[in-house]
């Protein structure tokens, strides 16, 4: 409803902001279909029963229509099934009005209104686009699947300012402000089925800055996020209490794009303050940190190899999870305090727009298994677990 109001409001102002349209190709359609198999041993990352699962389906279709030369409407629908990783079903990924406020040889300023997709992290706007991400499962320290629907974007507005010249290179600034709706399925992924109340995101402000020196193979980025969530306990039986989650998230990244080698790394630092929720008087701030280093090698035009190492802990004052274990009276194993992942894989282009991708993960720790608020040590009873996944994808 909020989204509809935003679009109607903006559409009513269009005649005053656009200039005349010329040229062709005002409509664009694109889409993708991907189906895979994923085999997880000794964790409930995808299913409560370990083993081979077909719950690796991603479909999407998008369209963009230019009705003035500097004004466009664009939207994308996706269907996702990743098992317990995120809520299964169809979602409107984005539906926005893109107003090109200013453009010349050096500057590009665009405003987006409606439901926008975040553009702040290295892979944030292609995390669910199978052929445009480096691996099937992205580094969970940053691209935690449980937060996928919240991290993906929001209803509100975003601003993009790009500057380029031959001295400074390319400087891109992004700002966004908007909130995500959290439906019942998404709530259960984040807070478990025992949370019968309502969770709402009260605000989410994000900004990022990227710099590529002129014609450099390197690009560097910074981002920050500030967001709050309110939980109101259910009227009936609810395991949890009213609570507020305050979340600040900072990232730094670098990417090198060479002819054969591509290197990338992202580091993040998060403040996660919980007030209430577990008990009415509960207050705790965890400072979590994580990073990954990734190398891709393009053996030829069709075959790309992948290697990645990732490290993450929920609380820098408890990197090995021993305090978490002690605070729970020994009920929560210490390996729920961190999650490290070593990944190798490859992708092979069978033909243009048809690719198969494979990867193997060796994981230590269970700190990024949903729901993180209520760890399940009965199923996740091993510190070391593994998974492999293969996915066939087509796009147009």
């Amino acid at each position, binding site marked *: 409803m909020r989204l509809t109001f935003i679009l109607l409001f903006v559409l009513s102002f269009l005649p005053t902001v656009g*200039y005349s349209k*010329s*040229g*062709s*190709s005002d409509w*664009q359609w*694109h889409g*993708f279909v991907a189906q895979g198999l994923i085999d997880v041993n000794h964790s409930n990352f995808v299913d409560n029963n370990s083993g081979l699962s077909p719950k690796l389906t991603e479909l*999407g279709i*998008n369209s*963009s229509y*230019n009705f003035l*030369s500097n004004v*466009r409407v*664009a*939207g*994308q629908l996706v269907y996702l099934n990743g098992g317990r990783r995120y809520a299964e079903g169809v979602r409107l*990924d*984005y539906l*926005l009005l*893109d107003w*090109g406020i200013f*453009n*010349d*040889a050096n500057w*590009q300023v*665009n405003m*987006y209104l409606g439901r*926008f*997709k975040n*553009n702040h992290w290295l892979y944030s*706007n*292609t995390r669910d*686009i199978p*052929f*445009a991400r480096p691996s099937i499962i992205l580094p969970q320290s940053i691209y935690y699947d449980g937060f996928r629907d919240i991290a993906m974007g929001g209803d509100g507005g975003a601003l*993009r300012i*790009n500057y*380029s010249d*031959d001295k400074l290179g*390319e400087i891109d600034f992004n700002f966004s402000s908007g909130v995500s709706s959290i439906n019942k399925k998404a709530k259960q992924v984040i807070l478990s089925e025992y949370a019968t109340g309502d969770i709402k995101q009260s605000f989410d402000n994000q900004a990022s800055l990227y710099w590529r020196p*002129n*014609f450099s193979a390197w690009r560097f980025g910074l981002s920050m996020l500030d967001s709050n969530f309110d939980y109101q306990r259910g009227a009936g039986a609810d395991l949890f209490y009213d609570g507020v989650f305050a979340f600040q998230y900072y990232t730094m990244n670098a990417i090198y*794009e*060479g*002819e054969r080698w591509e290197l990338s790394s992202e580091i993040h630092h998060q403040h996660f303050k919980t007030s209430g929720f577990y008990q009415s008087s509960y207050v705790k701030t965890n400072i979590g940190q994580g990073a990954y280093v990734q190398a891709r090698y*393009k053996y030829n*035009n069709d075959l790309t190899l992948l290697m990645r190492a990732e490290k993450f802990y929920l609380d820098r004052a408890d990197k090995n999870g021993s305090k978490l274990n002690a605070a729970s009276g020994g009920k929560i194993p210490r390996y729920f305090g961190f999650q490290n992942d070593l990944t190798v894989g490859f992708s092979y282009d069978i033909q*243009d727009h048809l690719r198969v991708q494979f990867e193997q993960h060796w994981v230590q720790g269970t700190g990024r298994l949903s729901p993180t608020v209520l760890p399940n040590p009965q199923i996740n009873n091993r510190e070391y677990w593994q998974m492999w996944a293969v996915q066939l994808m087509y796009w147009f």
Partner: protein
Amino acid sequence: MLGISQNAFGINVIVNSSVTVHTISRSELWRVYAMRTTVWPDKQPIVVYVLSTKSPTNQQFCKEVMKIFPYQLERIWNKLTFSGMGVAPIVVSSEQKMLEAVAKTPGAIGYVQGSGAMKNVNTIKVEG
């Protein structure tokens, strides 16, 4: 008006005859293909045409004319297209279709192997 060849045996950058630009720097060309510059200096919208990423002419255009790797552009276009933040260039299936599309579309830019001589198509010089 017939196009004027800059390099009869290499890649030539071609534009619709409505475009008043006769030379373009390598970095300006990159910004056009990265969809960062979307209007010509006279504010006419730029319509960008490309061949498929793996076609030999596209590979040669990226590596020899722009001195970048084809996957870098493809990545930028995918981000724009699948995030809703922008649009990708229009892909055509052959150089003949590229010539025809550029000839009939005001503000269009593309590239072909060889002279690119055709009515309503001009060849522009890439500097730098």
